[in-house]
């Protein structure tokens, strides 16, 4: 199933989509952290500037009608606590600079209703953050408006923001990598049920048309339902054709029996050897057809049951003894001695009794059929990590170099044209073996002429 080249993959698509989402989230996270942190840092600077301006304004006083300032040490030193930025200040009353840097621009306080105004400007070629604060100072009989401006460069802020940026970058990249890794895992686990379903369907034997019962997520239920209903229909139509065969075989067998009886009567009345020979041919052909019909019926039954085994506990020693008992009349006709070699302990497996009986009967039937008169057949049950149900005869053996071919439907050996047969016996035995997870082994008899056919069944 190498169709990877042309098909897109849910997993890859899901992984890519989740990674893109992770990337977008990382970028959003980075921008948010940066904005918030930089805002916080800027706010810190603003509040220290405001505190500085306040403490300067509080230190204003008037002396003999003139406004004076006792610049507090803390007003400037507090600005040096968070960074090593340059500090400028100016105190103005009525457009006259009382003290400080008299070229420092005053943020426009008239526009704003509040008495504190912040502004970012350029002073001495460097960006500064400035705060302006107005305060009325009474000079004897009248009050005068005094404006205090405090400004500070923003290098500390820049350093803080670059530190925050690099931290935010590192965290965002880490976040992206972790989320992408998790996305790939998530994509993997999202398609896992699909893989499980695929496996549970591919693992099945060719005849296993039972409904899929693997636990599947809700999204896959329609697919599984469709699959199951498809298999149901398939099984139904297969069953119908098997039933049709069984029905057909059955319908043929009955009239054939009538034809055979009549042919036998006719044969006994015949005097002329030529005619007699012809009737015998007819009888043989009828036997052949009847055998075929019987075997077809058996095979159809085995095929049907193999789909749904009716398992129960079976003692294999009983099974073998039973087969030997049932076929004893047939073997007696040829003076064939059936020797049983069974272990004293019970050998139990879970299996379908009808099927196993059919398999064992077909194998033993072959052994009797292809053995000469007055020989013996060894029926042995060996317990060697698996159960070996062995049927060893002293008959003609097989000529084929590849005995597994004999298992194929309607295939018969080249040395058995004198014996009636349909070529389905071993097919039935083989199918039964497979239905029980076992196998059929056909080898030559090691201790002389003949064949050894073994039905090998695993422990259950």
């Amino acid at each position, binding site marked *: 199933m190498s169709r990877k080249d042309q098909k897109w993959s849910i997993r890859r698509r899901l992984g890519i989509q989740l990674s893109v989402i992770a990337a977008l989230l990382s970028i959003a996270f980075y921008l948010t952290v940066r904005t918030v942190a930089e805002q916080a840092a800027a706010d810190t600077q603003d509040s220290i500037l405001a505190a500085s301006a306040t403490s300067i304004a509080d230190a204003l006083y008037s002396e003999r009608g003139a406004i004076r300032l006792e610049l507090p040490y803390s*007003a400037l*030193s507090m600005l*040096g606590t968070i960074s090593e930025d*340059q500090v400028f200040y100016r105190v103005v009353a009525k457009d006259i600079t009382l003290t*400080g*840097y*008299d*070229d420092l621009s005053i943020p426009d306080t008239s526009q704003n209703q509040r008495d504190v105004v912040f502004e970012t400007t350029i002073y001495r*070629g460097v960006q500064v953050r400035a705060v302006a604060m107005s305060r009325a100072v009474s000079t004897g009989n009248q009050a005068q408006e005094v404006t205090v401006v405090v400004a500070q460069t923003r290098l500390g802020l820049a350093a803080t923001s670059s530190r925050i940026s690099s931290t935010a970058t590192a965290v965002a990249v880490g976040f992206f990598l972790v989320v992408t890794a998790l996305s790939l895992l998530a994509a993997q686990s999202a398609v896992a049920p699909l893989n499980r379903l695929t496996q549970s369907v591919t693992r099945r034997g060719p005849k296993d048309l039972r409904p899929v019962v693997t636990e599947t997520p809700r999204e896959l239920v329609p697919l599984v339902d469709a699959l199951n209903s498809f298999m149901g229909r398939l099984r139904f139509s297969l069953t119908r054709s098997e039933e049709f065969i069984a029905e057909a075989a059955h319908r043929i067998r009955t009239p054939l029996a009538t034809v055979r009886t009549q042919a036998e009567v006719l044969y006994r009345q015949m005097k002329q050897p030529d005619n007699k020979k012809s009737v015998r041919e007819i009888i043989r052909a009828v036997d052949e057809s009847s055998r075929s019909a019987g075997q077809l019926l058996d095979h159809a039954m085995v095929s049907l049951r193999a789909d749904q085994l009716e398992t129960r506990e079976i003692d294999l020693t009983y099974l073998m003894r039973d087969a030997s008992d049932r076929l004893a009349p047939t073997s007696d006709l040829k003076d064939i001695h059936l020797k049983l070699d069974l272990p004293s302990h019970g050998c139990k497996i879970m299996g379908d009794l009808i099927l196993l009986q059919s398999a064992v009967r077909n194998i033993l039937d072959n052994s009797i059929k292809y053995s000469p008169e007055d020989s013996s057949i060894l029926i042995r049950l060996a317990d060697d990590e698996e159960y070996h149900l062995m049927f060893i005869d002293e008959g003609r053996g097989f000529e084929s170099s590849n005995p597994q071919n004999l298992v194929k439907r309607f295939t018969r050996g080249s040395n058995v044209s004198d014996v009636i047969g349909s070529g389905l016996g071993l097919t039935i035995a083989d199918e039964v073996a497979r239905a029980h997870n076992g196998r059929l082994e056909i080898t030559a008899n090691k201790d002389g002429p003949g064949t050894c056919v073994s039905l090998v069944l695993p422990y259950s």
Partner: protein
Amino acid sequence: MRFARFTLFLSVFLSSLSMANAFESEQQRTYSAQNAQETLRIISTADIDVFEPIIYAFQRQNPNVNIDYVVASSTELMRAIYEENLPFDLAISSAMDLQTKLANDGFARTYSSEATDTMPGWAKWRNQLFGFTQEPAVLVISEADFLQTPIPTTRDELIELLRNNSEKFDGRVGTYDVRTSGLGYLFATQDSRNTEAFWRLTEVMGRLNTRLYCCSGEMITDVASGKIALAYNVLGSYAASRLHNTAGIVIVPLDDYLSVMLRTAVIPSEANNPEGAGLMIDFLVGLKANTDLSASTGLPPIDKEALQAESAMRPIQFGPGLLVFLDKMRRETFLRSWVNSITQD
């Protein structure tokens, strides 16, 4: 000119100290190197005889650098760089506040090297100001006058002593004239921040007709000669370097606290040879490793352990706080109060 009005304000306050308008140097000497390729112009508040060993040692390591060494007072140094933008390559001053102003107002270059990166954070500012000595302000007394009298160990004891022996000490106490001495102003303003006792002490010294000096050297000379019995806020490093050839003086490090001044180097923005200046800064901050040299100059190098050993040592902190006492109004008020206290005729 952008800063015209601001420099006007500065020159007003500077000209109140000295009526001359152009910058005035006190001493100047050129040290030519054997194979000179460049010249390093240094303006410094340190006397030539103090700094000379450093110059020779530096030239031994850098034989291709001529050194032009100009000595000026801290206020003249400020005028040279801040107002006149003279192309000095390195400005070395004991007035930390004025040096801080240079850096704050954009008159300093940023410099960093392996040597400056390993400096403790409190010894530098903005990578523009590099402290290379730690020199406490001490009390220097004449041995002869304290044979019977107990030696004061704190400022309160000193006040007590001066109050109770006003006849003995009348006219025999010395300190910086903070109106003219940048370092004196720095020590006095730091004192005013550090202790309530400062104004009481100034008051008491005023009543005793205290003599006012421009420089530590003269105070030490007068203590040694017995002209005055004690001098307050003398630069400890100068006093220590005078001990071996001056009889009769005792250095008293007060126990309550000792203001520690860091002598700083700045590369002015107008420097023509900032690379050479960088070499000199590296050399200066490496003084601690060069014990012979710091012994011969009498300049104690930056040394964290030495500071921790003497818990009273309080290094003056870099930062915008140092600009406070340079504020025009604040300076006016401070000097007015100081003059009122110290001159009580």
